[in-house]
């Protein structure tokens, strides 16, 4: 994760309060929607808002632990790695994200 954050161009995308705990919001980008998740433990993760299964919007899923369950067919995706959990396999791209002083910063590659 640290390696990913180095020398990136972080952009302020909003306040941490704009994302409900155990929830997500999307940021519209030229690369498509990116979902920013906020876990129960206060961590923030960014994944492409597309499930590796059939492109379900992960931002609309249920967040639990460091994972999200897709709203369309219930795959569970790790927020840390973007990998599908359990018996399912597939991966969704991650993006560098960090919080500072209550603000959320996202970096695009």
């Amino acid at each position: 994760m640290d390696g990913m954050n180095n020398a990136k161009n972080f952009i302020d995308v909003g306040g941490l309060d704009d994302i409900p705990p155990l929830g997500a919001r999307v940021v519209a980008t030229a690369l498509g929607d990116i979902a920013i998740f906020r876990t129960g433990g206060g961590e923030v993760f960014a994944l492409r808002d597309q499930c590796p299964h059939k492109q379900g919007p992960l931002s609309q899923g249920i967040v639990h632990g460091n994972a999200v369950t897709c709203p369309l067919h219930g795959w569970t995706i790790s927020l840390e790695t973007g990998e599908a959990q359990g018996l399912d396999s597939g991966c969704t791209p991650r993006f560098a994200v960090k919080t500072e002083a209550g603000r959320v910063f996202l970096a695009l590659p």
Partner: protein
Amino acid sequence: MNMMISARKKLVVIGNGMAGMRTVEEILQRAPDMFDITVFGAEPQVNYDRIMLSPLLAGEKSFEQIVLNSLEWYAAHGIELIAGDAVVEIDRGSRVVTAASGTMRHYDILLLATGSNPIVLPLPGVGREGVMTFRSAADVDMMLALAGPGRSAVVIGGGLLGLEAAHGLNLRGMAVSVVHLMPTLMERQLDASAAHLLERSLTQRGMAIYTSANTASLDGADDTGPVNAVTLKDGRRIKADLVVMAVGIRPNTSLAKASGIDCDRGILVDGGMCTSDPAVYAVGECIEHDKACYGLVAPIWDMAKVAADHMTGAARRGFVPVATGTRLKVSGVEMFSAGAFMGDETTDDIVLRDAARGVYKRLVLRDDRLVGVVCFGDTRDAGWYFQLLKEERPLGELRGTMIFGPVSSAADPNEALACLADGAEICGCNGVKKGTICAAIAAHGLRSVDDVRARTKASASCGSCTGLVEGLLKISLGAAFSETAVKPMCKCTSHGHDEVRRRIKGGILKTIPDVMQALEWHTPDGCASCRPALNFYLLAAWPGEYVDDAQSRFVNERMHANIQKDGTYSVIPRMWGGTTTAAELRAIADVVDRFNIPTVKITGGQRVDMLGVRKEDLRAVWRDLNAAGLVSGHAYGKALRTVKTCVGSEWCRFGVQDSTAMGVALEKATWGSWHPHKVKLAVSGCPRNCAEATIKDFGVVATEAGWDLHVGGNGGIKVRATELLCKVTTEAEVMEYACAFLQLYRMEARYLERTAPWIERMGLKYVQEKIVDNAELRRSLFEDFLYAQSFAQVDPWAEEASCASRGLKYDAMAEMV
């Protein structure tokens, strides 16, 4: 003729029914290699549980569920089954039997198990189409072919069999009348008091009971046409599309008589079940032993044992008839009787009568011993009384308290069970004793009712003792039983749904973190399976207090719209009872134009679906729909969905009640309520049932007399038709019963369990006890529902459309382009 030479003796069984096959099973247990066995059966099926024809008729069981010996079983034991071919001749000289098809078999030993024939009264018109008896699977097929909602049935005979037939046909939606010759129902099993309670309870279920009534004729449109009415001797006429004659049985002795075997009422047998021909044995309803004939399975199982002992030479004990008890298999009617329940001048009575609860118990005593018992309305202690009766034990001090049962104050029913002696019979049908079951549980490590059933046959016949078997498992296994039996909600906890619900109420737990803390959840914030369940359980437990947790809702409920496969949403406004107006349709048309909504469709739930709405347009769509008075249809929720209606008496030429108005009223009262799963209602204006009410969670069907209330139906992968909850007369009653039923379901079912599986798990009877039989409980459930609704009836669209900050979830947080 089969001339194969074999070292084994040749056994031929005539009658592939309960007595014959049980005897074969007993023989195989004693001497598996002694005989080559051939079984002739007049019926085309394998051996099935005849007792279960009543639940089969009522739709509570399928034929597969009542099969006792499958074709594989016959094959595995090398038994030749010749089914659908009745034996027509026995040549005792050459020891050969011949069947109708001409098939012959030689025997060394012959077993007659031909059962009995239903008595057919020689009434004018008895040969008409639509007149039948109730004895075989074929009879049930015939009844079902003619049964159906809105049609009428007359059952002649108000005994055990007649009432079970009447009950089954009533559940099939027929208008059922019972014509009984005697002044009271089931006079051979019940005294007058219990019979009156029974009559009341059947009348409440919508049956018409005619006692002291004698049938004069079975009528049709012309001399030979199908039956359409029954005329009584006093001139009364009852409409009938179907007539069932259930007036008694007569041992089937014709074949034995014709071959010269001694018969009187039945085939005469000695204590070893041997007939006047030493090579011929007989068992079951066809026999007469010591001047008595039998019509229940318990003594027949004893006959099977004795016959097997003698035929294999395993033992020489004789058949000793024991007292038998009777239960009526009508769901929701608890009744048991045994022994000399009528009493006479040499007996004393102890009677308990609780008219309000519909409970009546009568114990008949002679010389300090129990000789007869009748229980109605509460049969929990029947097993204990029956045991006292059979043991003929002096009662002594028990006499003072026995009317209250074995442990008068036992709050825990298992305590009463624990008090039973090992010799106490648990399963009356199969004569299995408490000690046998407990020993089997210990010796074979049995874990479930199915295990016990397979090992001991307890609860394998009529099934009314299943609860007792479960209790014995609990007593024997203690905590291990509940642990193995209860499935945890999900991998985050070891507790099952019911336990969690109980602890939420009992422990006054009011938030999801509270629950997870108190119940030691294994994960920090649950998962996608337990969080929505907990959110619902808390919402149901603490109306008006609990603050809904949006993050524990599935996307559709969080967004108040249905997500589609491309990430857009569908929007379905409510159309009360399927009705709409020009203004509503105009508003919908305008919204479709304004937001370029690609598809508009009429749903299967009688309303309009707008499909393909972009997430960011949702709030504006709702605002415009709200402005025209349209509110969310909750098409996305584990919530009240639709109340479908038909046009009913306002317009339809068949309608007997205003089903549309009733449906609108129900939807107005119930919209906004959250449930364990989706809930659908429907109201039809007559039994033609155009609103498909009988596959809904709660279905209402109008009749001339009022309304039939049906519960527990659904479409889906496994279609399930509803069961009749009860019949009521007024709209106010429909409303009260519907809301009380929904409240019971909300408070007790497990999350994602629809009403159908919930009712299958609990039994219709359980629901009837709470909603139909207990008026006080029904009213309090109704009030609880209304109270919860006072917080729940808020249109989520209006809320979201007007609340600026919460609306944020519909828009992107930022745009980086």
